[in-house]
């Protein structure tokens, strides 16, 4: 059945091919046929990938609806776990067998605590089963995830739609081949296709396609047009490669590849020093995190029995509860250190605002929608490890959830003091990434991934909108030189407004649904306890997000135009992608519509589709609780967001009543400067770490290099030369040549001696002959005499 799902490697291969084509023929094509010829290679490739990813998503939905059973299922499972089990057995590691498919893993703990409610859940859900349009022919086995959540919250149990679906275990489609083999361990390279990667394929290819189109105009007549499109293709290839990776080593490769593309594209206009600095900063900051990632991969490899790098294998092992929890915790934290840099979490987020030095479409694609969520994707993919290592299921506050929550707040605060529109969006991205990480940290897996999905659309829309604005305003992003653009750029204005509302989380736009799920996840928590701190952090951020977006929106589009010249609306090639993204920002939230709000949607089997198709059921924590929709929380966040928007817009509409407060009030000034200096983090890194730790280290290393290493090397050279001289003088000249010359001399001398015998006189020869005969005879006679 899955004729495409096991051949998903085609997608990155297409993009890699496109990269090579542009690299080798791009410039010639550009010179002969113009920019469109070069760009069309990339556009055509990404368009093909987009269409393929639609087919793939469709096939995956088919697979979830009709999961393979019996032998097919076992084969799929074996493909996904790879050769690790055999290897593990050889190594003497006990391999945790997954829970029996079906009823068995129906949480014992759940039944123990809530047996009556659980029964209620069954009772109410069973009649609905018959009417539901779901096609669970294989015996509707009500299963762990959705069910237990329904059971855990009695109020929602009756209406919880997930219960009737029954989460059967749907095995992802895996394809792999051995890369190399070492010490009985197969190092594989392969692809994984499940809901998560299918979702990522769709998101990445779609936004990449729109950005490809958009760049056609945005980078028109750019000095490095070819270079830009080549990098876009390479980035798409790397990102697709990354999300399809079946093992952590392969993920590491993809991770580094996207980092390189990010570096190359941030420094696209490298003539300006600031841009190269930003590129270097991004690259080096990421390198700090990558170290953690590598450590995490290695620790995890050994923690799971040194048998395989396969993600499902490692998740399964981590969830088995039989591993060393300390080791698992170290692995999870080290992996998270990688996430910290890539996904802009505190304290390694500082590179992301600087990365805005790159072209705006790149900011939209790489630094908002796709690459920066690689870290979030990593947590989502390795969720078993994080779940096991951090004990998320206990609702104890742990590092990941806290850092997520903390990042979301500090990012949000910083967005208020930015004058650069792109910087506002960049800090907003940091804040939203913190939201996703926090969601994953509190166990709201679907909520976090869903927010990743919705955020990609409206944040890309905002960035592309900002690019459109800058295109109109003489390439500035300074909001002080904007204002009143509503009149000049109607399309950009409308799409930007839609995306702003979506990001602020106003019903019924996309951000509302995903943000609400995260808040619900934090409120509900795991195992009876709520993540209250994270809930508060999330609510504060919900308010702040709306407020700073209101500010940015007002300063850009309302009021009077403050720049020079007359702005103009961007051409269609820019506004069409904006409109597409705006439509997505409006409706995409409905794919995970909480069913029980409208009963009909629920009955039609349309509720919680995203969760149903994306949340894994294989090698995934079975006791994960999915929070139900809560009216009070949704209402509260909606009120906060509306309030925030109103303040953000109203403050500036009233003519900034508090303006000048930072000059009058010293306390306020201190606060403002503190924010403007970005919490002095950059100063800390530069003067605190770079100047006091790194520079002396570098100097010491330089000294060591010059004096010790070079001394050793030079000394070795001198010694070698001396030794060579001695060797030449005594061994070569003395021994070897002496032997040769001696041989010659001996031959000559002996020849001289023998020459004298050669008199030419036959009688002398005869005399010698006879003399010798006489001597021989004498010897014979004598020996005979002695013997006798």
């Amino acid at each position, binding site marked *: 059945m899955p004729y495409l799902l096991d051949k998903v490697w085609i997608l990155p291969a297409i993009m890699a091919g496109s990269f090579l084509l542009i690299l080798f023929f791009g410039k010639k094509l550009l010179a002969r046929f113009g920019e469109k010829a070069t760009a069309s290679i990339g556009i055509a490739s990404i368009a093909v990938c987009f269409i393929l990813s639609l087919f793939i998503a469709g096939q995956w939905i088919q697979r979830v609806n009709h999961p393979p059973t019996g032998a097919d299922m076992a084969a799929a499972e074996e493909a996904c776990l790879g050769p690790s089990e055999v290897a593990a057995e050889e190594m003497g590691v006990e391999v945790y067998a997954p829970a029996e498919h079906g009823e068995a893993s129906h949480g014992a703990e759940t039944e123990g605590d809530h047996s009556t409610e659980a029964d209620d859940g069954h009772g109410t859900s069973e009649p609905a089963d018959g009417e539901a349009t779901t096609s669970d022919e294989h015996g509707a086995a009500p299963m762990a995830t959705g069910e237990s959540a329904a059971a855990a919250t009695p109020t929602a149990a009756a209406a919880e739609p997930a219960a009737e679906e029954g989460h059967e275990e749907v095995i992802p489609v895996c394809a792999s081949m051995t890369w190399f083999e070492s010490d009985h361990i197969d190092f594989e390279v392969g692809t994984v296709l499940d809901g998560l990667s299918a979702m990522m394929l769709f998101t990445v290819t779609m936004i990449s396609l729109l950005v490809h189109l958009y760049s056609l105009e945005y980078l028109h007549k750019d000095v490095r047009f070819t270079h830009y499109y080549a990098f876009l293709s390479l980035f798409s290839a790397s990102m697709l490669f990354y999300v399809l990776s079946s093992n952590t080593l392969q993920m590491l490769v993809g991770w580094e590849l996207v980092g390189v593309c990010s570096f190359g594209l941030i420094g696209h206009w490298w003539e300006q020093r600031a841009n190269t600095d930003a590129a270097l900063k991004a690259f080096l900051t990421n390198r700090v995190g990558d170290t953690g990632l590598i450590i995490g991969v290695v620790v995890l490899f050994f923690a799971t029995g040194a048998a395989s790098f396969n993600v499902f294998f490692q998740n399964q092992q981590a969830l088995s509860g039989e591993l060393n929890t300390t080791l698992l915790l170290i692995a999870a934290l080290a992996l998270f250190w990688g996430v910290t840099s890539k996904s802009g979490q505190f304290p390694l987020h500082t590179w992301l605002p600087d990365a805005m030095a790159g072209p705006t479409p790149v900011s939209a694609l790489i630094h908002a929608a796709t690459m920066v969520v690689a870290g979030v994707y990593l947590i989502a993919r390795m969720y078993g490890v994080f779940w096991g290592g951090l004990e998320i299921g206990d609702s104890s506050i742990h590092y990941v959830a806290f850092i997520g929550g903390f990042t979301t707040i500090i990012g949000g605060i910083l967005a208020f003091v930015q004058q650069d529109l792109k910087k506002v969006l960049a800090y907003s991205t940091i804040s939203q990434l913190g939201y996703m990480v926090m969601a994953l940290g509190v166990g709201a897996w679907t909520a976090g991934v869903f927010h990743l999905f919705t955020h990609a659309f409206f944040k890309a829309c905002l960035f592309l909108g900002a690019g459109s604005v800058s295109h109109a305003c003489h390439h500035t992003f300074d909001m002080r030189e904007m204002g009143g653009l509503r009149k000049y750029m109607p399309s950009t204005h409308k799409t930007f407004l839609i995306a702003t509302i979506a990001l602020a989380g106003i019903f019924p736009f996309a951000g509302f649904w995903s943000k609400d799920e995260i808040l619900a996840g934090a409120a509900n928590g795991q195992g009876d306890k709520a993540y209250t701190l994270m809930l508060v952090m999330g609510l504060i951020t919900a308010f702040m997000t709306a407020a700073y977006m209101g500010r940015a929106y007002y300063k850009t589009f309302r009021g009077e135009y403050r720049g020079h010249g007359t702005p103009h609306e961007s051409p269609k090639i820019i506004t069409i992608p904006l409109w597409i993204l705006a439509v997505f920002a409006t409706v995409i939230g409905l794919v995970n519509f909480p069913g029980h709000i409208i009963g009909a949607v629920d009955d039609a089997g349309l509720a919680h589709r995203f969760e149903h198709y994306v949340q894994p059921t294989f090698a995934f924590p079975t006791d994960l609780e999915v929070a139900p929709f809560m009216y009070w929380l949704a209402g509260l966040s909606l009120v906060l967001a509306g309030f925030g928007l109103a303040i953000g817009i109203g403050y500036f509409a009233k003519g900034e009543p508090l303006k000048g407060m930072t000059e009058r009030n010293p306390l306020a000034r201190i606060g403002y400067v503190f924010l403007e200096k970005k919490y002095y983090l950059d100063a800390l890194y530069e003067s605190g770490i770079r100047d006091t730790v790194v520079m002396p280290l570098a100097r010491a290393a330089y000294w060591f290099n010059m004096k010790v290493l070079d001394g050793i090397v030079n000394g070795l050279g001198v010694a070698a030369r001396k030794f060579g001289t001695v060797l030449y003088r005594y061994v070569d000249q003395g021994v070897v040549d002496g032997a040769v010359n001696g041989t010659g001399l001996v031959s000559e001398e002996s020849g001289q001696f023998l020459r004298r*015998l050669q008199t*030419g006189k*036959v*009688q002398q020869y005869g005399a010698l002959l*006879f003399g010798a005969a006489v001597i021989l005879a004498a010897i014979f006679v004598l020996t005979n005499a002695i013997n006798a």
Partner: protein
Amino acid sequence: MDLMLNQFLFLGAILFCIGVYGVLARRNAVMVLMSIELILNSVNINLVAFSTMWGVASGAVFALFVIAVAAAEVGVGLALVLMLYRNMRSIDVDRVDLMKG
């Protein structure tokens, strides 16, 4: 019979020694050739003496063979002497030292 054999062997030895002396000491090439004949004939005497002692003919036959070879050898040798003389106007073997190293 034993006494007789010894006498023949003595005769052979004396002839051999005379021959050797002639070969080594004479300057005249013809005399050298003649001395070689003496050596050969001393050997012949020995062969015939032993042949008679054991009562078998092979020694005598071998002696006849030696005489035939000696005749040929003298033929070749005298030819050599002749050519020597033509080239060097002398048959003094001491002067024939062209192979001196």
